[in-house]
């Protein structure tokens, strides 16, 4: 098992955000967490990356407990996150942003190769490599955020609402790239409000409702589930 969350609880002050979430991700897997606003999707990803400390429960990566580690240590183990709202460094250039994604790596040749690979995925970033992050469009900023996460050469990529606020054509482009990345063996956990898209891309899905898992299963069977259809797919 690549990543396993066992009965994870997270509290903000005294308010429970996660109330016993259990998730399993295999090597090379593609899973999605869907659910409405405030269901705990982002909190789950934040807990995996070490930005929130679980009040109880366990998170393990390749059978090693990681829930007590700081975010930089977790990144080094191979878990990268594309955070909600992109969070690129707006006063740094595109290339500086990407280089910071590889901050912990010392093998310059491999970093160079991955930089070229990111520019291969996102040719528009290559055109704008010396521009400041703040001059990019929303879609380009999302690409930069994904590219930055890829620069750490992750085994597991967490994405928080990558489609939010983007034009459908850009969403399609990003979806295609996520499939490519997954095809190269990187496991993906995708958090989305756009459940149509998420269930189309992922192999397994979890439905989060008020801080716990309401449903889980194959993406296809979830997409046919009556409850999911009415609540999340708008059919």
């Amino acid at each position, binding site marked *: 098992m690549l990543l396993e969350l066992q009965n994870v609880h997270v509290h903000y002050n005294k308010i429970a955000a996660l109330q016993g979430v259990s998730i399993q991700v295999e090597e090379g897997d593609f899973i999605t967490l869907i659910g409405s606003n405030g269901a705990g999707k982002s909190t789950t990803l934040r807990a995996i*990356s*070490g*930005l929130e400390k679980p009040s109880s429960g366990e998170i393990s990566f390749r059978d090693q407990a990681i829930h007590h580690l*700081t*975010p*930089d240590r977790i*990144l*080094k183990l191979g878990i*990268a*996150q594309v*955070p909600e709202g992109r*969070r*690129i*460094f*707006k*006063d*740094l250039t595109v290339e*500086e942003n990407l*280089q*910071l*994604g590889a*901050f*912990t790596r010392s093998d310059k040749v491999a970093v160079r190769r991955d930089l070229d690979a990111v520019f291969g995925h996102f040719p528009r970033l290559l055109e704008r490599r010396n521009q400041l992050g703040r001059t990019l469009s929303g879609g380009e900023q999302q690409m930069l955020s994904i590219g*930055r*996460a890829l620069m*750490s050469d992750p085994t597991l990529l967490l994405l928080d609402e990558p489609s939010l606020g983007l034009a459908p054509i850009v969403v399609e482009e990003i979806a295609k790239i996520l499939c490519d990345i997954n095809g190269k063996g990187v496991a993906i956990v995708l958090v989305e409000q756009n459940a149509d898209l998420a269930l189309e891309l992922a192999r397994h899905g979890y439905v989060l409702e008020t801080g716990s898992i309401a449903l889980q299963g194959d993406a296809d069977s979830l997409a046919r589930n009556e409850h999911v259809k009415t609540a999340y797919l708008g059919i």
Partner: protein
Amino acid sequence: MELFLQSIINSFIQGGFFALWAVGLVLVFGVMGVVNFAHGELVMVGAYTIWLLHSQYGMGYIPALGMAILLVLLIGLFMERFLFRPKREDPLGGLINSIGVLFILQVAALIVGGTGPAKQVAPPFSGTLIIEEIVRVPYQRLFSIAVCIAALSLLWFFLTKTKLGWSLRAVALDREAAALQGININRTSMIAIGVSGALAGLAGALMAPISNIYPHMGHNVIITAFIVTIVGGIGSLPGAVFASVLYAFLHTFITAYFSGTIATMSGLLIMVLVLIVKPTGIMGRRISE
């Protein structure tokens, strides 16, 4: 005319010092989110180190300058590790801790140097450069401005050309996103306050031979540093350097033609006006985005 030309030269030298004071404050505020009220006292400790080691114990000026940098750097690291880090999520707590350090260092200076008149250090670089019998620049001041410019250039190079420098800027821009890139926030904070402390120690060591040394000399430093960081735009290093030179001109000319007190009052007035009219300063950006 002579006074005018002389004031221009003096403004640049003064501006170098202002910038050296301010960038350390900006760096710590940007990366750690702490307003370090003891920053002026760190400069004071640098000056006292020169007085003690160079004037009292006869150590060479340059080795003593190195010791001043090292000592203040270590004080900075101590402050981050034991006073600011436990208050990471509480900027007010960090600020209050820094005010505590301010008083402790002032008292320490009194214990080391005793009371009595302000101390002075004989300039190790004697002589004066005289240009056309009009402008006079003591070699000590030329040395100071050269070192100021070298130190600021080095800092600029570090922040814009090295990956470690980018990581400091990344933490200042978005601490959480920086942590997600594998940047260790504690380590970055240590680097920021280490650089800030080294610059403060250097500034104090450079000031020692050309100004009075007394326990409260940091007062003027922190007021000036606040004025130029606010006018320049809080968190903007280029803004702080630019504002330092501007303010140095204003301060030097008003001091030359009126008085030093009016000069500082004008500076504070400008700071208040900037806060009312354009709170983001000359080069600052809106924080909310």
